[in-house]
């Protein structure tokens, strides 16, 4: 027994040692920043203490017995058994404790369900492997992917994850919400089941394909709150975090305004250098393509085709654009990728040394636009930048000729 005690002491010391060395982990649930999360936290602490109390009573009795009622101490066994009174008592007392727990729990279930009378609604769609946010009131709509630093770090073994700030808990575009505003969330999914969890908000909710779930929150104080997908959703399930930034109402309004302007702005059609196309192409690739085609462009045998040396990738560029925009049964259709991103991506996948391709061409944003798209942007083709009228685009030559 003495040895056991020593071992236990060692363990406790080890734990404390770790505790002083790293201060940034937590042992318990966090209180969170909403009324609901506080309610859930209090409930958690209540049950935890009830369990600790019962545990001390039961284990205390058991260990008293283990230490004293042993043969080596010459204790003689009593032969009692079956005592109806005792058995009734140890059935009734737990029942009463359960009732005491059920009352606040019921209240919390009801509070969590109060999604009505919200001030705004955000639709969250889980996709393999990122989140898609749509602000139903303002029309703002964007995707939120794992940030590039984490994306690279977990795919390239030479990068130390510890050097990446908020490794795996950071995104390229966080969800921004106003504080002290009742927000109703709608959850759904495009492919498989996902689950949206930010611990500081106090709950998680599954996003089921073909169905809509709802939940609500009202964040008490501004801040950055991080979470992750919590329903296994395939190979990159561990790599689709959630970041919620809560800000004061005025700041939030300004943010929405700026984002809407960006969302409605024309794609940048200016001429880019080859280097900047490749650089931008890499980030577009890491955001949209890397999950399946992998960082070396080799794909995954049996699952996803490689891009390195693929005839489709290195062949006719217009067919390739059409293919990427149309998608396949396995690949999503990248119809909404803005022209500048599309052009950079094409340049990157055809020429990036990391992917092992070397076609030797480059594509400017204007030349990634189809005739219809160009006409949507410039009803009068003469207003289009000179670059767009250049010879790179065969179809465009025809347009210019017709207009003339």
């Amino acid at each position, binding site marked *: 027994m003495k040895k056991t005690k020593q071992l236990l002491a060692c363990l406790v010391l080890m734990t404390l040692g770790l505790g002083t060395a790293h201060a940034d982990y937590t042992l318990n649930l966090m209180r969170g920043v909403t009324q609901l999360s506080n309610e859930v936290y209090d409930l958690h602490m209540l049950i935890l203490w009830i369990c600790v109390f019962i545990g001390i009573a039961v284990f205390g009795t058991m260990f008293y017995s283990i230490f004293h009622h042993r043969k080596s101490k010459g204790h003689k066994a009593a032969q009692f058994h079956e005592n109806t009174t005792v058995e009734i008592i140890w059935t009734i007392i737990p029942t009463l404790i359960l009732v005491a727990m059920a009352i606040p729990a019921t209240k919390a279930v009801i509070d969590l369900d109060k999604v009505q009378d919200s001030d705004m609604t955000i639709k969250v769609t889980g996709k393999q492997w990122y989140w898609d946010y749509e602000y139903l009131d303002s029309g703002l709509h964007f995707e939120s992917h794992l940030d590039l630093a984490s994306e690279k770090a977990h795919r390239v073994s030479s990068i130390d994850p510890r050097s990446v700030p908020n490794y795996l808990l950071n995104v390229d575009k966080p969800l921004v919400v106003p504080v002290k505003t009742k927000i109703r969330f709608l959850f759904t999914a495009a492919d498989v*089941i996902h689950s949206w969890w930010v611990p500081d908000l106090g709950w998680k909710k599954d996003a089921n394909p073909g169905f809509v779930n709802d939940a609500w929150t009202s964040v008490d104080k501004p801040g950055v709150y991080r979470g992750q997908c919590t329903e296994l959703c395939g190979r990159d399930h561990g790599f689709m975090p959630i970041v919620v930034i809560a800000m004061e109402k005025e700041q939030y309004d300004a943010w929405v305004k700026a984002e809407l302007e960006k969302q409605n702005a024309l794609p940048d059609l200016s001429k880019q250098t080859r280097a900047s196309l490749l650089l931008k192409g890499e980030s577009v690739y890491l955001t949209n393509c890397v999950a399946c085609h992998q960082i070396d462009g080799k794909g995954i045998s049996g699952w996803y085709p490689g891009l390195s040396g693929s005839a489709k990738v290195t062949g006719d560029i217009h067919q390739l654009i059409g293919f990427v925009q149309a998608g396949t049964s396995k690949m999503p259709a990248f119809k909404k990728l803005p022209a500048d991103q599309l052009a950079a991506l094409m340049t990157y996948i055809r020429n990036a040394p990391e992917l092992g391709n070397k076609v030797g061409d480059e594509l400017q944003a204007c030349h990634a636009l189809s005739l219809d798209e160009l006409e949507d942007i410039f009803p009068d083709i003469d207003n289009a930048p000179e670059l767009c009228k250049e010879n790179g685009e065969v179809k465009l030559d025809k347009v210019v000729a017709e207009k003339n």
Partner: protein
Amino acid sequence: MTAVVAEHDDHHDHHDHGPEKGILRWIITTNHKDIGTMYLVFALIMFFVGGTMALIIRSELFEPGLQFVDPQFFNSMTTMHALVMVFGAVMPAFVGLANWMIPMMIGAPDMALPRMNNMSFWMLVAGVLLLAATLFMEGGAPAGGWTLYPPLVLQTGKALPFAIFSVHMLGISSIMGAINVIATIFNMRAPGMTLMKMPLFVWTWLITAFLLIAIMPVFAGAVTMLLTDRFFDTSFFNAAGGGDPVLYQHIFWFFGHPEVYVMILPTFGVASTIIPVFARKPLFGYASMVYATAAIAFLSFIVWAHHMFTVGLPIAGELYFMYATMLIAIPTGVKVFNWTATMWKGEMTFETPMLFSIAFVVLFTMGGFTGLMMSVAPADFQYHDTYFIVAHFHYTLVPASVFILMASGYYWLPKWTGNMYDERIGRLHFWLSAISVNILFFPQHFLGLAGMPRRIPDYAIQFADWNMVSSIGAFIYGFSQLLFVYIVIDTIRGGTGKATAEVWEDASKHGLEWTVPSPAPYHTFTTPPEIIPTEHV
């Protein structure tokens, strides 16, 4: 009663026979002891196969970053680890114990349906091999979690139909085993062995067998729907065709919740058998143990959606499943209080089976506490699908079911082999296991509460320390189980000496198996024993 060894030619005589010679003995055997041994050995091998997968998982999680395996393979490992441990290790181990012990405990010569007994074992082997084969198929083994949730599981490569057929075979094997247990208990008890005189291990297995018959067809149905959704254009779980992916979860957990009790009820039975022997005192409340087991089994059918609190249940559903789940604490509490009261004022000695049983009571109760915490739906909104639940169910499976399986091994090995195991190494095995299992699983509570989701191959830096501690515990735990293999082999080869018929002090008061010689002869109770009314075990 003495061992009857057949000494005649190859033609098998069905009246007077010992074991067949050579490998055929094992392939065609209908002897409950041989089949029990095969189940136990098979389960032990699968325990190490599943354990190796767990160590692959814990190696990858030792440090942040992806070091050893591809995320898809990691997901296959979590999926296969669970399937192998549940269907290949824990369930077969208890079937093995049932085979060996139920006939001997009720004074029957063999199981009621010996040929089906043989078939259910070989069906199990075929099923598990088919499952293992999926690891080498194009697209890899199933990687959608052992729950096989659609639509994700439908993205499995070539392995999906094989995994589904494997589940069918495992289900048929379990159902045959369960029918056999029920038929044996209802028809083959020795005269005077009334139901309320049966050892609790027999009682808990009787109830478990009914659970199995009720649930395995449900699981088979659920996976068959997956099969037709994938290959025959049905839309049971596809919203676009009018189905619902959540329907699968309801069906699965209607199977799944009783299924986890299939792994724990026989555990209760063994603990209730071992503790009185080493406390030298009758079990405190035999009847209340039987009723509590039945109550838990009943409740297991009406609480399934507590696995699905976050799936978007209507509020009435949330409340009902929360209340119903909380109720489980009552009969479970009765059991824990009963074991404690049995030890109280006993005359305890601490041989290895008792050590494992006491650790079971303590650590299972911890798993019970976290279970109670998760029954509270709003709190489960935080705990669900995090490492908190990983800690919870591993506490109810490893230091509970697996510890009791180890306790059973130590308790009955002398009866099976006729030799005593080495008590010193047994205790070493216990202390290494009991300490390392807590280093392994206790920090996972912290990880879950701090926000680490389950089933992820890589994690944020703030989870690094406890993951490392947990992985260290995993390796100590995993490797210390090799001691058990050593002890089993050593005991078969002679151990520390011959065992008496009774093995443990006054054990014959506690069960019929201790009235036959050690090792137990190939055929026992060919004429039924006389049951003398004694204290309950």
